[in-house]
């Protein structure tokens, strides 16, 4: 069973990777990968009061979502979205668990409201006025692939464009020791049922028993392994190369996902 769509917008942000064009230069070998702390832009689509309330992963998710949609000239207001993240806002989670472990157990109402896994999707909707359906998923290390599968079924079954936003950030200590995600990484894809002027490639996905792809470059391989959203990197490498080919992404322990890429000339 193969699902097909067009990738008509892309956004990437991560350690040493500031946007999709610069990430593409690294992944296609035109530039060396130089790891550096992820720089998260202030989300200008939010009002000042909300801007002050949002954590790092919300800034990350909004940044890649905006890059993918603005590149495609897609108005977000009627756009269906799928957000996928393994852990959501790790700092917010730590602050809540910390407060609950102390006498008094006074927790901030804003922190509690922000603790929902769909916080980034909520702020995206508030910031862009998007009232369309938005789903929010988690599949631990398989979160990117699970999100891609969900988004592809929605494109194919409902014949609508879908924005996929996969993002993950770090936990502070002591949770960091138990879930060592080093820094923020996010990737967003605008998937459309038809080819558009902005389409980068046609994509066909299917569940697979093949072995998943790795990187020879140790820094890129470390990034791929460290962040669930960075499990997208083998697919992004093909898109960066602008050549036909197949990437195999990690999924569940019993299956992988084969992603066939055909660039739009």
């Amino acid at each position, binding site marked *: 069973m193969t699902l097909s769509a067009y990738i008509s917008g892309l956004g990437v942000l991560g350690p040493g990777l500031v946007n999709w064009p610069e990430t593409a230069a690294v992944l296609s070998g035109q530039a060396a990968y130089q790891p550096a702390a992820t720089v998260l832009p202030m989300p200008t689509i939010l009002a000042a009061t909300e801007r002050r309330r949002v954590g790092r992963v919300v800034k990350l998710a909004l940044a890649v979502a905006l890059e993918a949609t603005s590149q495609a000239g897609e108005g977000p207001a009627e756009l269906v979205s799928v957000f996928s993240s393994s852990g*959501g806002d790790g700092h917010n989670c730590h602050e809540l668990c910390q407060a609950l472990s102390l006498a008094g157990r006074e927790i901030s109402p804003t922190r509690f409201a922000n*603790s*929902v896994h769909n916080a980034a999707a909520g702020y995206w*909707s508030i910031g862009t006025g998007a*009232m369309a359906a938005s789903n929010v998923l988690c599949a631990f290390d398989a979160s990117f692939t699970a999100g891609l599968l*969900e988004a*592809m079924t929605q494109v194919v079954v409902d014949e609508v464009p879908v924005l996929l936003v996969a993002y993950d950030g770090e936990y502070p200590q002591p949770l960091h020791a*138990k879930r060592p995600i080093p820094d923020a990484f996010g990737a967003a894809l605008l998937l459309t049922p038809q080819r558009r002027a902005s389409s980068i490639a046609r994509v066909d996905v299917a*569940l697979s028993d093949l072995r998943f792809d790795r990187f020879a470059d140790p820094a890129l391989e470390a990034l791929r392994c460290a962040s669930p959203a960075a499990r997208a990197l083998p697919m992004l490498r093909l898109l960066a190369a602008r050549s036909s080919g197949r990437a195999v992404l990690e999924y569940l322990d019993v299956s992988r996902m084969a992603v066939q890429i055909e660039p739009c000339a």
Partner: protein
Amino acid sequence: MRPLLLSHITASSCIGTGVTATLDSLLRQRSGLKHCDFETVDINTHIGEVQGVDAVRLPENLHKFECRNNRLAELGLRQDDFFEAVQQAAMRWGRRRVGVFLGTSTAGILQTELAYRERDPVSGALPSSFDYAPTHNSFSVADYLRQRCHLEGPAVAVSCACASSAKVFGSARRMLEAGLIDAALVGGVDSLCLTTLYGFHSLQLSSPAPCRPFDVARDGISIGEAAAFALLERVPDNVDGDSVLLLGIGESSDAYHMSAPHPEGRGARRAMQAALKAAALEPSDIDYINLHGTGTPSNDRSESRAVAGIFGPTTPCSSTKGATGHTLGAAGALEAVISALAIKHGLMPGGVHTTHTDPNLMVHYIRDNRRAPIARVLSNSFGFGGTNCSLIFGRAA
């Protein structure tokens, strides 16, 4: 959309483990809410606790998943021969052709809350016994159930706050429609924890009394917990007329506020309209509405405006949260099962604890049980972040 068959259902909440006990409580209008005595929680509020959760032991080979949330999942799985029904579906279709779509808001976060009390006094480290992935992570309950049931199809946790386990029906439906799977284990599991009890308290959204949805004096929610599951399959040609089908799903976003619903129920209205459209039904085709009805002043006002705007003031509706409490990420699936029971048994469950229906809420809120044939039910689930999902269930014939 093409209708789907609920080929097997089960629910466990504070009003009963399994559908027989659940139906019995609904028939008696019995509430399972009690004054909060959970763990070390010191809040003047009521809770809906499932009996016997911590006496449950997970199978030895899945020991790493031990936490209250997965124990509740296991308890739920053991009711109504649900585990056996899943195994039969796996035999019928193949293990790779059965997917798992589970809604949860907090999964096993209680395990982390407890671990934070046992941090090393010098290093601050969490105890070595704490295992993040199979307890804390939102995927843990979906991963537990897929391993427990030996399923190898697509699996995911949907975590959209209190709409989570309504939205799982949408994810499963798309996978079935796309042909990736032939059956889906869908449901919701959410369990009591300090984050939600103290969190809703901090927002002044939890009531000191048992919650009174749509009452003029309503003053907040009572937090509950539940495990509720359904097995979804395509409708066979020879379907039994008494079967319950999923006829429509509507999803929307409020684009308004993180923790307050839109005052006019803008997103809720859009979700209900989308569900009616998907089912190719008119508002007059709906016999009963199982409301989100949390019992907060703002939710019930907003929802009543959205419902009245589409259905007018005559369609009977009620919230079952006065009986079960608000089971958060499990509420959508729990109320889907209650909707199916309503159809099967011709029961519109009256809203428990509500004594004076708010005259400003222009809907036909029922407080007493009604027995009447029910062909179709609409069920609402809304969540923080302004996420909305409406489901429509109906008799096959």
